[in-house]
């Protein structure tokens, strides 16, 4: 699948944003994070900013963005519509929570309820995003049991690493959170490696024989219906060279998982402001790594239409 930057950025940014929003909503709502205007403003700003930037980026991917409002109508059948509904709906408790927590400096009562609802909305939205991909049968790498948990794990991971950076920035870092960040990053690492392993060994019943209805033997593409690349090939026929792929997987592991874990270990041992600097660095590096991961998520996904083209 063509790794369009708009979509790569969208899923990565909203994943991190919703992760952060969910953690803030639960932890602040339940009083684990003290009400502090600047902390709140930056935290909620970052979460909602990432979400909004991601959503805007995805709208940029549309052919007719002015009609985007129509996407809220088909929630009964469409995960994309559900994502639209969930993302917008989440803004309501998230906004209330931001007012209560950041502006009013409160963490209890309706603010806590709003926080938890925002968290629920965030998780739900990430689920819908994951399901958009997981539900697509023509793309076996996505239509697997790894996709939805992956989206949730990466969201929680990048959200927690962001929150850790935020708290350390305000010199109120939490070792428990730090430990959680490391665990989630290791979990994400493991999940990604397992996903790759699974995908590399994937054997699917769909092949050039079933695609053409020609039973038995081998079916080899002789001539395409067009000699130059068309929409199908540009959109779904993207291929990444094997060597290139291996390199990018290494980069993903270094940036998204290994470096953040090492940096976070260092954070454990270092005082403020070094801990803050390294925590921020960990979050930044991980975000860059997740962009690479998401690029690969698309680039390595093989759509069945490529069978018609012998790709």
């Amino acid at each position, binding site marked *: 699948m063509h790794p369009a930057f708009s979509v790569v950025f969208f899923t990565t940014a909203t994943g991190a944003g919703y992760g952060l929003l969910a953690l803030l909503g639960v932890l602040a709502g339940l009083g684990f994070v003290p009400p502090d205007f600047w902390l709140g403003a930056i935290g909620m700003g970052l979460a909602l900013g990432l979400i909004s930037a991601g959503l805007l980026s995805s709208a940029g991917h549309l052919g007719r963005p002015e009609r985007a409002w129509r996407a809220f109508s088909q929630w009964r059948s469409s995960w994309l519509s559900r994502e639209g509904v969930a993302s917008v709906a989440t803004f309501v408790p998230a906004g209330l929570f931001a007012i209560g927590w950041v502006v009013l400096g409160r963490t209890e009562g309706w603010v806590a309820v709003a926080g938890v609802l925002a968290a629920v909305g965030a998780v739900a939205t990430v689920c819908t995003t994951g399901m958009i991909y997981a539900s697509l049968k023509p793309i076996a790498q996505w239509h697997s049991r790894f996709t939805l948990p992956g989206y949730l794990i990466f969201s929680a991971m990048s959200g927690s690493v962001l929150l850790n950076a935020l708290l350390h920035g305000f010199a109120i870092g939490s070792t428990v959170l730090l430990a959680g960040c490391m665990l989630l990053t290791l979990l994400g690492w493991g999940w990604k490696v397992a996903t790759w392993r699974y995908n590399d060994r994937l054997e699917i019943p769909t092949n050039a024989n079933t695609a053409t209805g020609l039973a038995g033997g081998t079916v*080899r593409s*002789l*001539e395409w*219906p*067009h*000699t*130059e690349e068309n929409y199908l090939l540009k959109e779904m026929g993207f291929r990444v060279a094997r060597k290139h792929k291996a390199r990018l997987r290494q980069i993903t592991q270094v940036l998204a998982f290994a470096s953040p874990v090492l940096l976070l270990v260092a954070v454990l041992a270092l005082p403020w402001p070094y801990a803050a600097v390294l925590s921020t660095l960990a979050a930044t590096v991980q975000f860059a790594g997740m962009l690479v991961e998401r690029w690969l998520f698309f680039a390595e996904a093989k759509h069945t239409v490529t069978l018609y083209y012998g790709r």
Partner: protein
Amino acid sequence: MSHGQLRGANSAPSQRSLADTRAPDEGDGVDTSPDISDSIAKTTCYMCACRCGIDVHIKDGKVRYINGNKDHPVNRGVLCGKGSAGIMQHYSPARLKKPLLRTGPRGSGEFREIEWEEAFSIATERLSKIRRTDPKKLAFFTGRDQSQSLTGWWASQFGTPNFAAHGGFCSVNMAAGGLYTIGGSFWEFGEPDWDNTRYFMLFGVAEDHDSNPIKIGLGKLKARGAKVVSINPCRTGYNAIADDWIGIRPGTDGLFVFALIHELLKAGRVDLDYLLRYTNAHVLVIQEPNAADDGLFARDSGGNPMAWDRVAKVPVSATNSDAKPALTGNFELDGRRCVPVFQLIADRYLQESYSPDAVAERCGVAADTIRRIAAELAHVAFEQAIELPIAWTDWAGRRHETIKGRPVSMHAMRGISAHSNGFHSCRAIHLLQVLLGTVDVPGGFRFKPPYPRSAPPGPKPAGKDVRPMTPLEGMPLGFVCGPDDLLVDDVGTPIRIDKAYSWDAPLAAHGLMHTVIRNAWAGDPYRIDTLMMYMSNMAWNSSMNTVETMAMLTDSDEAGNYKIPFIIYSDAYYSETVPFADLVLPDTTYLERHDCISLLDRPISHADGPGDAIRHPVVEPDRDVRPFQTVLIELGARLGLPGFVDDDGSAKYRDYADYIVNHERTPGVGPLAGWRGKDGTSTGKGEANPDQLQRYIDNGGFWHHDFADDQRYYKMANRSYLDFAENMGFIPKAEPIVFQLYSEPIQRFRLAARGHGRVLPPEAERSRIETYMDPLPFWYTPFEEAAVDLEKYPLHALTQRPMHMYHSWGSQNAWLRQITSQNRLFVHNRTAAGLGLVDDDWVWIESINGKVKGQIKLVDGVNADTVWTWNAIGKRRGSWGLKDDAAESNRGFLLNHIIGDQTSADANGKRYSNSDPVTGQAAWFDLRVRIVKCAAEEAGFTEPQFERFRQPPHFEPSPDKLSFGAEFRREREAARP
């Protein structure tokens, strides 16, 4: 439509509209009944040579849509990939806009626009000087011309013998092979009996002629479960659906067919009765070596060929229907030894050298396969014979209660034609058909009227006597019956610039357009003044040896004058040839013109009846262009050519439409056969009908006559058909047409080579004439294969156009070029592995003539000794309105660059045209190559590259986007409430 056939070709119950076509009440606001057109014009397609009937839907003066005409005898409603893309041809940005006069060097593309008046006066002045001095200094060659009865007649009235269309490049081996043997031909002149055949053999590339009729026919065979056998090195197109694909080595089809004949003869599986009735198998051939009539037919005092009555044991006239002629034996007539033709056939093809085992390796076909095919042919022909319960009467008045048929049919075209042994290979296939008794019988191969004609047909080529201001005594192209008919001077020098009807190519019934540029450049046999061409891309894909051809077009003498002094070219598009012209006459598109598809030319008849058709303007030109035929008629009038002016010197015809209606070639016979006579009630012959074109338009653009049931088969000997043919003027007299298995006209050339006769070949030509002018078909190694080092050039290289572009200017068509804008060289997997090549590699394709670079694609379905590519995809930069980055000029390649236009020098140092020695058919399938992986830095782009052509004045850059059709929708939606 005829004989119980449905109107539409694809009207099976599963191809019809829904039983209830009322739109369901879906409530989704879809307009299920949009208005389509303001009017529908029924005319004739020109996207290739097939000439299908089309319905052109016009909306707001624009072409909305084109579909096939269901009533039309050629396509019966279907339309091919080209036909449906006609809109893009019509609206092409490469259309010429105004007459052009060259301003820069030839080949640069620098022109200035001129008015038509100036164009006419330049041409008239030049041509009238030629006509006053030496008319043959005008060489007039047309390309895929569908008006040859006009263009040829124009040349004849001008007085130049130097006329032909592109048949010499394309089809003459098939035309001549057929017309000299059975008086008809595969090509478009006949067709399998698709409704009755049970076994169909298809030889070689045949996607060119006839496009849709063959496809419709193949569909019928498939629906009926008939067996399809294809003999073709490439498993593409029609071969993909064959039950048996025989991946033969190129150029060996004749040998393969002889092996089939060998097997059939050996097993006694030939139709002796058919041979006796319809062929010259029983005619006695004189066997007196060294005599002046050796190998000619024994004739009686009246000149009739003789046979031997095996019962009465006396010589009889071969046409005596009561005789019992012998087919074998040795007889003495007036003290001279004679044998029947059939004895010679048996003697030759029963030789072991023609056995399956002897030919298998050479053909690349297992001997067992050959034996199996022979057995299948025999089985279907003789065990599955069919009889139609229709009584008919033969030429001799014998009544037959049924029509008997042998349901084996064959078709062959390009794959046989384009080899230097194609004429004899074609004759071999006809021989096979006739031995099986399958020509013009139910289930067999059928003639389309006006064929059959006598073998060969009557008129001989004119041009022996070329004089200033004098028309030729006939048409420039015709059929020679012996050396006396050749167009050579006293020492054997060709009279025609293309050397047609000379010792180089005695039976050149279509001329040799492919030799004109070289001969004119070399002044061999003489220099010309003006080369006038129409619709033929001679500076690119319609020439062999393109690189040198372009150089010859631009070469000048010491004085700086072009060696070909003046070139006039008419084309509708900015093709690769336009920039080489001095004067460009812009033609219209096919939707803007009148045309006639005439029985005098290449008709659109059906085996069940003759037909012809017209084109008429459907839309008005938006440019200052004129139909070439109208221009030619005006030029004829300005030159004062007899036939083009009235007695007072005024123009006889207003334009081509006027000519179509009012011209009479012989009294009562004009370009169109339908609705003749003042009141339109005559058919075939009759006075001009001023209303004729309207009658055609009212009838859907065509005329078609349906045969009575008893006229449909055995046309070569069918009394009722022959009478009809005589009445229509197809044949001079209602006499039977005898298939010439042994060709006496060809033997006459052989005798000349032995020194007999009035017109003798120069000494140096004698052994070539002796060898190739064999009265019975034989096989020889194609010339290039025989001449080159096969170790060095181990592969055959073929080129064919894709079906969606055959005979069309496909590459500049915005839709068709999206399907194919880069051609690959297809290489067998095994062959590639042996050469260390993998898919998508870039290779040099090298022949003795040069090298060209392209990208390969590995395949399984090709003869392993053969590589091939799609032809004419490669385009020169600056042509056809294509942008500089177009794949056609960057990655597409033209194999023509490396196909030689001459043979290697013979023992006398003479180089002949790279052509069949009998007919002069260009032998572009003889090419031998090697392929070599190119260096890494050479990959990704084709070579050779040529300088980009400048664009003519007022040529807009082609658009970056096409939204064709958006306007129809806008208008529709605006009109909705």
